[in-house]
């Protein structure tokens, strides 16, 4: 079981029999975070012995063992937890509500920890509330993308044939339509936009990355002996996918979803910055948008745009670092030597 296990995406069964660079060859890529980013995760841990409960427990302990000794993972998770904690308790610590008007143009001081903007909004309070929005949008986006991508990816990879062709075509088309411009269209159709809308929209434009990954993995897994055996035993397709195929790519899928979470937050910041985000909501992107529109650069109000961007960078970077740590934990080949 260990040899086929190390099969990479680039020799998955659908790969170039005729020397055709089939879609499956591509490692899944994640938007915003440039695609190559998770290429290292392209080595699935598929083929870890299944069935035996003892083996599974041993594997779990292994992951824990390496996880607790992986500095990247610990650093990433630690930083992320700090930021989550800030998002949870920050709004309660803030002395002013994010939309209340105080003295405008105030420098950071004891009274206003991070200063105020040119309207008089307290930056600290806006930051703490904006952080919540970012996490919310990121989670929504990643969840929608994961669900849509998994359904389509499993369907395409398991059934193959015409369905696969059609779904691949669909995936490629979705990738090529510029999401931002599409958002303009749909956004102007709605008079008010909610955080839910933004999250779902991001999910519905980023699912192709999950779908590609899931499809390629399913393709390579479905011809393995244990899947054949499950099929021979008369199990239903759905149950084979859920019980035999999905667990084998769970770790890999987890990494893809983490990256999508980060990139959803970045995308949301871009949309908000262009004024296409949720209406009447304080977010990190809208803070930067207001700073831009109200000439924060000209007035040297660095405290207006610096904190939201810094926090967002930290949020996403922590995810990325935790992700590479997890990758090393799941995947022995990448561990430090």
């Amino acid at each position, binding site marked *: 079981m260990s040899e086929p296990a190390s099969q990479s995406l*680039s020799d998955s069964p659908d790969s*170039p029999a*005729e*020397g*055709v*660079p089939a879609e499956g*060859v*591509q*490692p899944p*890529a994640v*938007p*915003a975070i*440039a*695609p*190559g980013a*998770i*290429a*290292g*995760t*392209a080595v699935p841990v598929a083929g870890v012995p299944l069935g035996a409960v003892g083996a599974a427990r041993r594997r779990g302990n292994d992951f824990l063992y390496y996880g607790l000794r992986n500095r990247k993972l610990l650093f990433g998770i630690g930083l992320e937890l700090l930021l989550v904690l800030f998002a949870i308790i920050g709004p309660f610590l803030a002395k002013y509500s994010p939309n209340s008007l105080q003295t405008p143009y105030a420098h950071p001081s004891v009274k206003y920890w991070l200063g105020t903007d040119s309207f008089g909004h307290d930056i600290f309070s806006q930051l703490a509330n904006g952080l919540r929005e970012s996490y919310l949008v990121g989670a929504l986006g990643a969840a929608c993308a994961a669900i849509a991508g998994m359904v389509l990816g499993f369907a395409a990879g398991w059934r193959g044939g015409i369905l696969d062709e059609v779904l691949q*075509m669909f995936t*490629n*088309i979705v*990738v*090529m*339509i*510029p*999401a*931002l*411009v*599409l958002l*303009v*269209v749909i956004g*102007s*159709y709605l008079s008010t936009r909610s955080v839910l809308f933004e999250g779902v929209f991001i999910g519905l434009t980023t699912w192709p990355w999950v779908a590609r990954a899931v499809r390629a993995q399913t393709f390579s897994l479905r011809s393995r002996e244990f899947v054949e055996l499950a099929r021979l035993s008369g199990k239903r397709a759905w149950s084979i996918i859920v019980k035999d195929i999905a667990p084998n790519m769970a770790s890999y899928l987890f990494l893809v979803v983490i990256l999508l979470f980060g990139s959803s937050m*970045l*995308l949301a*910041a*871009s949309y908000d*910055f*262009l004024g296409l985000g949720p209406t009447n909501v304080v977010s990190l*992107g809208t803070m*930067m*948008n207001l700073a*831009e529109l109200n000439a924060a*650069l000209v007035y*040297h109000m660095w405290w207006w*745009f*610096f904190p939201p*961007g810094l926090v*967002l*960078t930290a*949020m*996403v*970077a922590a995810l*990325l*670092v935790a992700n*590479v740590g997890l990758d090393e934990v799941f995947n022995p*080949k*990448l561990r430090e030597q």
Partner: protein
Amino acid sequence: MRRYLIRKLITYLLAFFVGVTIDWGIPHLMPGDPVATYLSNFSLQPAGYAAAYKTMSEAFGTNLPIWEQYLRFWQGLLTWHLGVSYSNFPTQVSTLIAQAVPYTLALLVPAITLSYFLGNRLGAAAARRKWLDNSVLPLGYTFQAIPYPWLALLLPYLFAGVWHVLPLSGPYDNTLLPAWTWTFVWSLVRHWFLPFLTVFLISLGGWAIGMRNLVIYELENDSSRYMRALGANERVVRRYAYRNASLPQLSGLALALGIVIGGNIVVEQAFQYPGLGHLLYNAITNKDYFLLQGIFIFIVIGVLVANFIIDLVYISIDPRTRLSMQGAAA
């Protein structure tokens, strides 16, 4: 090979078709009647309103059956008649786009290609080399995690606001008249540098990290082990690892285009750089739907063309495809 190309071609055509259909749907998806919305800008008497409504419906073709409107849209598109901009009346949309394209290409082409090549080199060099890895990796993650709007505010703040070495925004010094003089070109370059740097830096990290991970994987591959066992020197092994790793990176490039273009829109807006992104933003704020439609379809065509070029490069560097072109593989 042929099957691959035909499949790709069908995908491109379908994507174009879907793009055009969405594009056509923009005004039709809008709530309310576009002609009525347009006329609400003027205070008209009921009788005058009826007459104006009739005239405008005929002018815009909204009185035609919906399928005929759709066909006319295709006709206009294929003859590159994108209509007249509403916010820049009476300039043609195609003229506005033609004016904006050079700025966008000047940002995107160098930013994408340079970050791709440098990032890949950097990542490949960092793989399995402790000291380099320890500096490239954290920097790469940070760059990758930076939101476009932030860097597009931070860089001008530092370079223009604090250090006064580069201009804050705009395409060129507004005291100058466009002319091919050294002063003007120098001003263009100085204004171009920061937006370019923003797109470049954010893309750089992703490529470096992607390449680093792929090369590590390739170096642990059986083929690399075999080469080492044969006594090949490490440089040769690395060179092969790099070449193998470039394939997935190249297909990643095709996927990244849409994201980079989105980021570029943010950057152009933040720097008031008059490319397509800036034009698009103006079209949004002015509800200039003809302009919006024109830019949308232009961006779709741009992405399709870039994908096609990447496909061709892929075919030329993947030995397996070349082999089958010569008929060696069945």
